[in-house]
């Protein structure tokens, strides 16, 4: 029997309709591509970024909910969680995407200022830890209601491989990757899944800051990585009523 591609696309598109998704670092690179694609698929999206102007611009462009704040600041975390759950009325998916490189330009560890390492750990490790903890109640509620609950932490191959000059970033991403694995084991019975995803080297502002001489043509487009992550989200959630309906019909 020939595959009905039209129907397959409809099924995928409707599977995220009404899903409540929060993304940090949503105004550029991978985060922005995710906001756009998730909105296109009908998800209800709230994104976080530091600069009010960029937040307003992205919110207007994407019709997503923009929230200004810095996940690297402890005092911002609960106000962010309040606005995320206040707007969405709960949360099905959290994507911890905001990242800090540490020192720019990149530097050997011995030349890295403590403050730069602290900033990288603050944004890349403590930020996701704190925000996830603040939103665990909302995620667990979603799981109890059989909507599914998923936390995606954006990782890097630098979390696994030792690249000179990437020390601050690498150490923070390695810790994030391991924290993700442990949290996944601990929260399994609460119905919350945790995934660390390496989107590979992409043509993004973060990569340009790290490696200004890289040829953008050789880098992956963030839209491609975003589409892969959207697929992981669809796989990671139970079918929505809309999707079940589409499959049945």
């Amino acid at each position, binding site marked *: 029997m020939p595959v009905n591609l039209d129907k397959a696309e409809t099924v995928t598109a409707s599977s995220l309709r009404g899903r409540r998704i929060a993304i940090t670092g949503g105004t550029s690179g991978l985060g922005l591509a995710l906001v756009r694609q998730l909105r296109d698929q009908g998800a209800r999206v709230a994104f976080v970024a530091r600069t009010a102007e960029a937040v307003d611009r992205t919110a207007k462009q994407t019709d997503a*909910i923009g*929230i200004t704040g810095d996940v690297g600041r402890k005092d911002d*975390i609960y106000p962010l969680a*309040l606005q995320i759950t*206040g707007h969405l009325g709960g949360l099905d998916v959290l994507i911890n995407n905001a990242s800090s490189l540490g020192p720019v330009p990149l530097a050997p560890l011995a030349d890295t200022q403590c403050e730069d390492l602290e900033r990288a750990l603050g944004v890349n490790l403590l930020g996701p830890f704190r925000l996830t903890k603040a939103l665990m109640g909302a995620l667990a509620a979603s799981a109890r*209601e059989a909507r599914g609950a998923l936390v995606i932490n954006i990782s890097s191959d630098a979390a696994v491989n030792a690249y000179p000059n990437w020390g601050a970033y690498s150490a923070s991403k390695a810790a994030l990757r391991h924290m993700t694995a442990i949290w996944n084991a601990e929260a399994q019975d609460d119905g919350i899944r945790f995934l660390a995803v390496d989107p590979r080297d992409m043509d993004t502002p973060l990569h340009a800051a790290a490696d200004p001489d890289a040829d953008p043509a050789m880098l992956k487009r963030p839209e491609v990585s975003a589409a892969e992550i959207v697929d992981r989200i669809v796989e990671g959630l139970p079918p929505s009523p809309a999707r079940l309906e589409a499959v049945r019909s």
Partner: protein
Amino acid sequence: MIAADSPDRPSGKLMVVDAHGGFRHRQRADLAALFQPGDVVVANDAATLPASLRGTHAPSGDPIEIRLAGWVPAGGKLGMVAGDQRQRSAARRIPPGSVVGRDAGRFIAIAFGQGDHRTPTEDRPPPPALFPGDRIQLGPLVAVVNRLLNHPRLLVLCFLGTRADLLAGLARHGRPIQYAHVPKPLALWDVWTNLAADPVAFEPPSAGFALDWRLLSAWRRRGITLTTLTHAAGISSTGDPTLDRRLPFDEPYTIPPRTAASINRAMAKGGRIVAIGTTVVRALESAAKADGIVKPGSGFASGRIGQASRLRIVDAILTGMHQPGESHFELLRAFADAQDLNRATSEATERGYRAHEFGDVMLIERREQNWVGGCRPTVAVAGAFGSY
């Protein structure tokens, strides 16, 4: 009783008052071993809004503190607040499609004059004289007095701007409501329970502070189900005796279908229902008013539960240490008689239990005569919560 004066030093005592008026003194960690397979524990997963806002009353230029205290039902009808019986019945009709049937931009609020939480609420000066239409600047937010509710401190307030402006303004400028027994300013993380999800409460459903993920895991292993509802807990005290007599205001709640199914199934099989906090009792008993079956969906819990109330759903309550005269204490009289509760209070005082939201907890089993059943199997025997 000593007041628990800090969220940083969680108290760990647990007093169990059984169905026969017997007491046991345990630790909070012992909760993991309480209850029986098949029992259902119901918690309130409301997160708490930063509902205290400082600002200026524009017409007079005087300082003012606004404490958001309750939701206004969608459609603008007020129940207990207005004290009008005809409006009360209207208030319970929730418009279709409404999540919890509340008006997102309007609040019942209590106003205070200058000073802050370090002054006991009963000693706080009154707010400047308020009139409908008065503007109040609250940090980045602007609110307008909609109307007064038969008391100079009690009003309906309407915020100007979008819902996003309101949430961002509350997030930036609001502080958790707090009282003089906790001197250190509270942060939102102090007032969100581990289960906090949808930010609709004005004060924390504080019995939920006793629950952590380790405890939930222990219950799951023992076949005890945790389930949740969302009840927008309102303000617990205004410092004004005439206003306090009007508490609690009508409070919106939502009971998810799975929660209702889980409770009704457990009851049919003889499992017992444990409420984590007074708000859960109000929501469940309100949702089962008609026929003793918990109905899923949204509604407004109205009226008080007290000595004369007959409980249809809840077999036991985990609650903070409340004292005679508090509205929460009155609710406990639906579970145990006044004599037992007074003895419990004396014993708690003697043994150094701590009161208030960050204090110790007590588990009270419902006395037999306080149960209205008929369709439930009789399994409530001494030690049914056993293992302690």
